[in-house]
């Protein structure tokens, strides 16, 4: 058992953080092996819709108050050599995601439908003896996510906070370890493509990129955080007709799409392979080996990857917020304060709470640790 | 101890449930202290007969009486020596010889005394702590004999005990077996393929017919031991037995 990196005052209550696969969390919660979990959507909604658990707090509302408002989550990133070789293509894809992000924000119901189909074939999810419709879960989940693509100053600061946190935990060991804020931004971001894309969107005219002979691959995660990517493909006709850009799937079967064609102004530009990964870190590793060229994943893994020397740049945010803390439905908790009270009580009983989080260094990991420490609890990894 | 075999036959069932008559029905009386050799072509049921006497198989027809009592299972008064593979390779010579005593719960000290005596009897002093794989084939069979004798059985059943040995070793073992037999006077039932061996060893030679084995002839061997293989009477009995066997084969 590792000691938490930051040591709060003696005598404080203790909470255990345990890293588990996300899909296991509802099961672990309902079998009493954990007391709660901090995770991305749609697992927060799964708990609520199925009645397995209740939401204590969505991520943006976690303490310290105001810290996490509109916090960073997923972003589009790409390999530097790919960006350099295909600037117009990168611009076009950025533009499509700007458009589809807006589309999701405006049509949450449709986005829920598409995501349910993509992730679950639109069928039911079974958790023990509870069956919930994946549509219902995603209809609950999508509105809790902010689909915003502007790399605003707030967003940048939010990333800075994660960088701080990652440094504290000791995850940054490479180029970003001691870099100044300016150096960090230079190393991490390349917003020129966002700006070009935004300009094209505003002008209503997408520049046709050069054709590629080789396919390209985009990595994504099985979460409705990636809904903009899903709708861009499933509702390709909408984008094709209205904006002259689309990712047209090769097949029309329900469920996931493996291969699509990027069509700009009626021309097929490139074959795009859609690679589902297990987590942001895995997608970064894939990008490091050039197995994929772009990825749609959380910022902390991207930051860590850049720190380790991977030639990757963050191009634009794709979605903010969208995580939450869930506890068992039976827990005497309805908000953060009662959660802390419960944590204190359990710690006093000698049975400290056990909260599951996805892998170490993830957004959820960083947020829950910070929030707990801010509330005066000692965090232990168990 | 007398062994009385009354009309004993054995039918096996193969895996495909077909019956195989292994032994056709044999009646035979073996006297206490007698040395009987059984000869017969391969597959005629010699091993099966020995196994039934030992209580390892039950006759399909007829019955076997040892000292008047029917055989119902392995009996401490009978010991059997197989052609090969019967020593426990993970046990030393001493532990092999001691096996039966150990099974009967004889105390360690007594066991050692008895064991040592029989190891000496078969001429293996000095090899007590060797493992079977360190011995030659002949030495291994001597261990098997010692093990059988250690239980002090009244009847020794031997199924081609020297079949795997080369000719020279075989002759030596025959001599030694006779010496031991003369000293202990066990009843011996000795299965062999070798006419020569049978004539050299036995008081009586039982010849079985080809499968299913039936009693085909009984030869009494009347001349005294130690027998001279090159003597006229030896050669003549040997010829008689060989001729009978040839006939049996041709009539088949």
């Amino acid at each position, binding site marked *: 058992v590792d000691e938490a990196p930051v040591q709060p005052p003696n005598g404080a209550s203790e909470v255990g953080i345990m890293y588990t*696969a*996300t*899909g*296991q*969390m*509802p*099961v672990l919660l*309902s*079998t009493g092996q954990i007391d709660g979990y901090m995770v991305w959507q749609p697992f927060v909604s799964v708990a609520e819709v199925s009645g397995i658990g209740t939401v204590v707090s969505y991520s943006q509302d976690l303490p310290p108050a105001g810290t996490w408002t509109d916090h960073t989550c997923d972003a589009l990133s790409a390999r530097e050599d790919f960006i350099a070789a295909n600037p117009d293509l990168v611009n076009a894809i950025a533009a499509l995601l700007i458009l589809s992000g807006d589309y999701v924000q405006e049509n949450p119901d449709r986005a829920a439908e598409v995501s349910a*189909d*993509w*992730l*679950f*074939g*639109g*069928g039911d*999810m*079974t*958790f*023990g*003896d509870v069956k919930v419709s994946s549509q219902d879960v995603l209809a609950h989940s999508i509105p809790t996510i902010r689909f915003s693509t502007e790399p605003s100053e707030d967003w940048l600061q939010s990333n800075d906070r994660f960088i701080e946190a990652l440094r504290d935990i000791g995850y940054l060991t490479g180029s970003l370890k001691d870099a100044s804020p300016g150096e960090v931004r230079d190393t991490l971001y390349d917003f020129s493509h966002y700006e070009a894309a935004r300009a094209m969107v505003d002008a209503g005219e997408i520049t046709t990129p050069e054709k590629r002979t080789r396919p390209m*691959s985009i*990595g994504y995660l*099985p979460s409705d955080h990636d809904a903009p990517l899903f709708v861009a493909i499933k509702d390709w006709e909408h984008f094709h007709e209205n904006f002259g850009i689309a990712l047209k799937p090769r097949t029309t079967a*329900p*469920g*996931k799409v*493996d291969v699509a064609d990027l069509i700009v102004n009626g021309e097929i530009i490139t074959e795009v*392979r859609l*690679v*589902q*990964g*297990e987590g942001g870190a*895995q*997608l970064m*590793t*894939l990008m490091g*080996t*050039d*197995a*994929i060229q772009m990825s749609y994943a959380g910022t902390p893994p991207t930051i860590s990857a850049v720190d380790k020397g991977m030639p990757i740049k963050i191009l634009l945010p794709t979605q903010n917020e969208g995580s939450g803390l869930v506890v068992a439905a039976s827990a005497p908790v309805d908000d953060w304060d009662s959660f802390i009270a419960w944590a204190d009580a359990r710690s006093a009983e000698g049975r400290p709470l056990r909260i599951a989080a996805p892998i170490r260094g993830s957004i959820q990991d960083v947020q829950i640790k910070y929030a707990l420490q801010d509330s005066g609890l000692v965090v232990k990894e168990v | 101890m007398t062994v009385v075999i009354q009309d004993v036959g054995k039918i096996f069932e193969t895996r495909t449930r077909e019956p195989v008559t292994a032994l056709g029905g044999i009646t035979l009386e073996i006297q206490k202290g007698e040395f009987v050799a059984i000869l017969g072509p391969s597959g005629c049921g010699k091993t099966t007969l020995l196994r039934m006497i030992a209580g390892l198989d039950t006759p399909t027809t007829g019955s076997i009486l040892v000292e008047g009592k029917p055989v119902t299972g392995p009996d401490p008064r009978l010991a059997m020596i197989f052609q090969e593979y019967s020593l426990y390779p993970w046990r030393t010579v001493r532990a092999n010889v001691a096996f039966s005593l150990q099974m009967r719960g004889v105390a360690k000290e007594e066991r050692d005394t008895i064991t040592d005596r029989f190891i000496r009897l078969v001429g293996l002093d000095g090899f007590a702590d060797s493992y079977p794989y360190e011995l030659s084939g002949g030495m291994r069979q001597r261990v098997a004999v010692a093990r059988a004798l250690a239980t002090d059985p009244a009847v020794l059943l031997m199924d081609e005990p020297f079949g795997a040995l080369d000719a020279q070793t075989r002759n030596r073992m025959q001599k030694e077996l006779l010496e031991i037999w003369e000293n202990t006077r066990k009843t011996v039932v000795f299965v062999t393929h070798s006419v020569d061996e049978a004539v050299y060893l036995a008081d009586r030679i039982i010849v079985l017919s080809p499968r299913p084995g039936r009693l085909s002839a009984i030869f009494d061997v009347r001349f005294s031991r130690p027998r001279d293989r090159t003597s006229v009477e030896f050669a003549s009995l040997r010829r008689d037995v060989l001729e009978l066997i040839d006939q049996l084969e041709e009539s088949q």
Partner: protein
Amino acid sequence: MRWYLKVIPPLFLLLAWEVASILINNPFILPTPTSVALVLLSPMADILGSGSIIDNALLSIWRVILGFGLAVLCAVPAGIIIGRYRIIDELVNPLIQLFRPIPPLAWVPLALAWFKIGLASIVFIIFIGSFFPVLINTIDGVRRVNRTWIETALIYGAKGWKLLVYVIIPAAAPAIWTGLRVGFGVAWMCVVAAEMLPGTNSGIGYLIMYSYNWGQVQVIIAGMIVIGIIGIGADLLFRTIEKKKFQWQEMNR
């Protein structure tokens, strides 16, 4: 044994499962046989948007055959050479020993780096899993070819490839076949590890791991049963051919 006796244990297991699932009364821990049967009994229905069980199973079998086939193509010739030439054996043996204990799962990261996303990586993981059993059995089989058989062939003038084709290979064939059987079993067991690779959207292993990501226990169990049954089937197939083709081995002695 009567056939109806043979169905007792599976039925008993099923019953025990049913009773246990009722007693435990927590479908997270043990879903009822019924819920699993529902998945298995509609093998053509789509599961989690990933296609039907049948489709996924067929795809997995195809991948395993590819990886296994490749392993056989490499391991059998290599095994024959290593088994035949003592010096090569001594040279490569340390490497074989070093690589053999590394589980296929541990190769996943490197497979991805080397073969990128797609069929090649999946095939590599299965390849790595089945390569060593086939290799080891082939080496062993060739090494144990009866010396008398080889010398008889030498006496009758067989040399070089003729010796190989007419004596060594047929003589080692039963051992090689055992290697194939074991290797295929391992290959089949690697399917879950292989189909964990990112970019995989199908296959029975993917179905298990994807269901795991979504906590769909009844699908996991159904997938395990499918793996078990296909495993039995493949093993039976190999054994049946073995019995037919290599009858001489059992009978010889």
